[in-house]
Every structure is written in C-alpha cells, then in structure tokens.
C-alpha cells in the first residue's frame, strides 16, 4: 500500500474555469493518490463535470495546472488521455452500432490490435456481463446495459485512472450494486475518481471524499472523518422509564455530556432523551451506569451516526 500511495495519480493546482461571466471552477486544488477510490461530490452545478472535462483534456482550464501521473494536460495531452478511462455524465454512445462493432472501434482508437484487442474485449464482456448483448444495437439496449457498455469502453485499455461522472444515474438498485462491485473490483488495483451527488453511493465505495460547492473545495477527508469529525461530539439516543425531571437530572451527572433534549413518548412513563457529548469518545457506558445507579429502566441506547447527507446539506447549504 505504501508503494501504491507513494506517487500522486492526479494533482490539481489552482484550477480556474470561466465561461463568459460564469465562474464554473474557482481556485480548485486537490490530489488523488495512486490506488484510491476518490469521491468527488457536490450539488448539481457545483463544477464537478467541468472539472472532469478539464482533467480528461476535453476543455482546457482558464488557469491552473492538472498533472495526471506527473504529466501535464496542457502539453502532454495525448499521453494523459491514454492513461485515463472516462465515462461522461450522460453515457454518450454511438447508438447505431452493435456492441461488438463499438468495442472493435473503441479498442482500435485506444491503440489495441489483433490478439490484445480480442482478449481485452472478451474480458470486458465477461466482467461487465455483456457477452449476451454483443450483437445488439447499442440504441436498443436498456439503460443498465448502456451504462455497462460505457463503463467497459472506459476500462478496455486498462487505464491507470478511471473517471466516472454520475455512473449510477438511472439505474435500479440491483444494477447499482452490480456497477458498484465493478468499480470496487477495478479500484483494488487502479485509481478511480467517482463523481456523484448520491452520497450513500459515495460513502459505500470511496476511500476519500472531496465536497465542492460553487467550484470551490468545501471539505475533504475519508467518509468516516467527514461524518464523525462533524459538529463536535458524538450523539446518543436513549429510551428511559421515568419522569422527565429525574431522567434529565441523572443524565446531567454523566461525565462529558454537553446537551440533553428530552421528550415524553408512548407508552406512558417513558422518556426519549437525545444526548450530545462534548468529545468524540464513547460515553455509552457512563450513560448506562448512571441510569442503572439511579434505579431507572432502559429499553434502548444507541450511538447516532451523523449521516453524510447531513454533512453534505450543511456544508453545501442545500436545505436553506
């Protein structure tokens, strides 16, 4: 692992992109390590796709540099493209070709020939379960199969860096799991950048996440960092038998508690308490002991996870 992470796969420095008066990307800097599955998150219009288009050499930045495996997109543009496999947002494919024709074409364009082309195509067909669809016209495939064709064309030349822009859009839950497994499998050896606004997806797949808004970095870290590091301490929910005042009083005596909300709930005599801790350490045992020592009964005690959705909404100002 240490060797894998030694060199940076992607380095973005001070990236700016302006479309007329609109600043799509402002002074964006981040890096992706070799072998990482990197989540690139942001609300719609945050500049995700623009950033991906710059990295894949489709459009140049207004200013700033992008280094892919140490090569600059500004002057080593073809070499950079050879290292990248890209699936754009809307999965654009040539709908009048059959799947087989399409891969013969894409493989050739990506420099594969003869036996290598055949073995790579066969491998992609089996990995992406496309063998049965080989003679179908792409335009007549279902959304899920189109997505797999898109993914397979991105991976056919065995790129070092795979860039996927919203790869799950329009897929049903089963297909999502299949594609997620494909991405994970690929990500074991290679680097993947995964753009999305579906957070559960990203937290399930990615090693590290970057959240952007209005073309700027808001936060970056592992999914764990983002959820636990957020809003200070850990949180607990407890259902306790007793009256509100005594529950409140006894919980106050627990070391490390910063805030308590209580609420009477059914059946009668039960109280639901929401407890915020000052720090991140586990105070569950303290809560339990305190309740037991005070002669109260406990039916439920759980530590709440801040969901990535909450982090996302707060950081990107979505709910307001």
């Amino acid at each position, binding site marked *: 692992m240490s060797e894998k992470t030694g060199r940076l796969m992607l380095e973005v420095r001070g990236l700016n992109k302006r479309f007329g008066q609109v600043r799509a990307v402002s002074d964006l800097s981040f890096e992706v390590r070799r072998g990482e599955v990197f989540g690139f998150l942001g609300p719609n219009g945050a500049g995700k796709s623009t950033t991906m288009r710059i990295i894949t050499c*489709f459009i*140049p930045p207004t200013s700033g540099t992008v280094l892919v495996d140490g090569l600059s997109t500004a002057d080593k543009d073809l070499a950079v493209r050879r290292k990248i496999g890209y699936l754009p947002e809307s999965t654009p*494919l*040539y709908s009048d070709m059959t799947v087989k024709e399409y891969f013969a074409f894409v493989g050739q364009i990506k420099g594969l020939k003869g036996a290598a082309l055949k073995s790579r195509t066969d491998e992609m067909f089996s990995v992406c379960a496309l063998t049965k669809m080989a003679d179908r016209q792409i335009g007549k495939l279902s959304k899920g199969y189109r997505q797999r064709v898109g993914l397979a064309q991105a991976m056919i030349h065995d790129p070092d860096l795979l860039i996927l822009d919203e790869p799950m859009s329009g897929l049903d839950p089963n297909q999502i799991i299949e594609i997620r497994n494909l991405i994970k499998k690929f990500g074991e050896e290679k680097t993947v950048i995964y753009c999305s606004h579906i957070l559960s997806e990203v937290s399930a797949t990615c090693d590290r996440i970057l959240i952007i808004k209005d073309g700027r970095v808001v936060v970056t870290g592992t999914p764990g960092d983002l959820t636990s590091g957020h809003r200070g301490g850990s949180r607990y929910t407890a259902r306790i038998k007793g009256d509100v005042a005594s529950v409140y009083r006894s919980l106050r005596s627990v070391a490390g508690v910063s805030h308590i909300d209580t609420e009477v709930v059914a059946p009668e005599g039960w109280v639901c308490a929401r407890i915020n801790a000052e720090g991140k350490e586990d105070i569950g045992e303290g809560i339990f002991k305190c309740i037991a020592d005070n002669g109260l009964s406990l039916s439920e005690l759980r530590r709440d996870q801040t969901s990535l959705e909450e982090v996302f909404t707060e950081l990107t100002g979505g709910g307001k």
Partner: protein
Amino acid sequence: MNTVAAIFKKEFASYFISPIAYVFIVVFLVGTNFMYFQPFFLINQADMRNYFGLLPWVFLFFVPAITMRGWAEERKSKTIELLLTWPVSDAQVVLGKFFAALAFLAVTVALSVTVPVTLFIIGNPDPGPIIGGYAGALLMGAAYLAIGLWVSSHTENQIVAFILAWVAMFVLMIIGHPVVTMKTPSALVPLFSFLGLFTHFESIGRGVIDTRDVIYYLSIAGVFLFLNAQSLGGRKSE
C-alpha cells in the same frame, strides 16, 4: 494512421446503416441520368461534358446532405465528449471523417459508370475527358465536403448544418460565375474567378487537368479541414 483508419471505417459504415444513404444514391443516379439523357439524343454527341456540367449543381445539394451529420450529430448526442477525450488528435478525427465522406461520395459517383458504359456501347467517345471529368468531380467533391464538415462542426442541428453548408458552397461557387463577375469592379474579377469553385471545374470537365485547378481544389479542402480542426479546438475557449 491506425486511428484515422479506425475512424474512417466507423464513419464510412455509418453512412450505410441508415436507409438515407441508399435513398440519396438512388436520387443522385436517377436525377443525373434523367437530366443528362433527356437531351442526349438531340445533341447526338457521345461525350460526358453535359453530365459533368450538372455535377457542381447536383453536388450543391448532395454534399451538404452527406456532411450535415458529420459533427452535428456528435455534438447533439454528446458522443463528441468521448471521442475527443480518447487518445486521438483533432486532426486524426477530422481526416477520418473527411475521407469517409469522400469515399461515400466516390462510391455514389462511381455508380454512374452506367453512363460511360452506355456511351461506349452506342458510340465511340474519347476516354480522356471522361476520366478527367471523374477525377475533377472527386476533387471538387473533396473541396465541397471539407466546407460542409467545417460548417457542421459549428452546430448541433443537422438542418442548420445543411442550409449553412449550402449557402457557403453556393457563395463560393457563383463568385466566379459571369453573373457576379459582370458587376464586380474589374480589379477584383481575376480574384473572384480564381476563388470560384465553378470556374475551375469547367476546364476539368473538358478533360483538361490543369495543375492550377488541382492545387486550387486541394487547397480549398486543406484550408477547411484545417479550420475544422481549429473549430474543434475552439470548444476549448467556449
């Protein structure tokens, strides 16, 4: 070179996937044959000058129809985003598309071989002007196609691509025509008639292949292919 070949193959095949190609070929052949053979027995001459004389006008409609899809469809279906992020240079893609269009035009024109065959059966034509005429038609076609593809790279609407290509070709065609040169300041006449696509075809149609005409057509094609590659690069400043 391999990539240009791959793009050529894919583009050329794509012409024949849709039935439109066959419709165009049939319309082209029936139209030109009809117009050529109608006065044929009145003129009573076994040569193809009149046939080749039709081609600049027929190409004016036929070539934009070939090229309108070229880039407009890639832009509309967004496949251009994949195509131009694959490891190919803009020039390779432009050339692949251009040669595919040229090959399609060549196939169509070659199917008019029934005309010279008929001439050889019923008469004794001079083969020189006929071969020269075909060569000239391809050169002229190449220039038209390059213009049409360049126009197509500016829009995602095929109809717009067709009409603008028609206009561009028409202007370049009649600029050397007497209708225009009669009214232009005399200092500009040589320039206009040099730039006109039409003027250069007349001598080729007579079977005279002048290097100046060949160079003219090839440079028009070259210039517009270059502009085409530039306009793809133009996405970069959008």
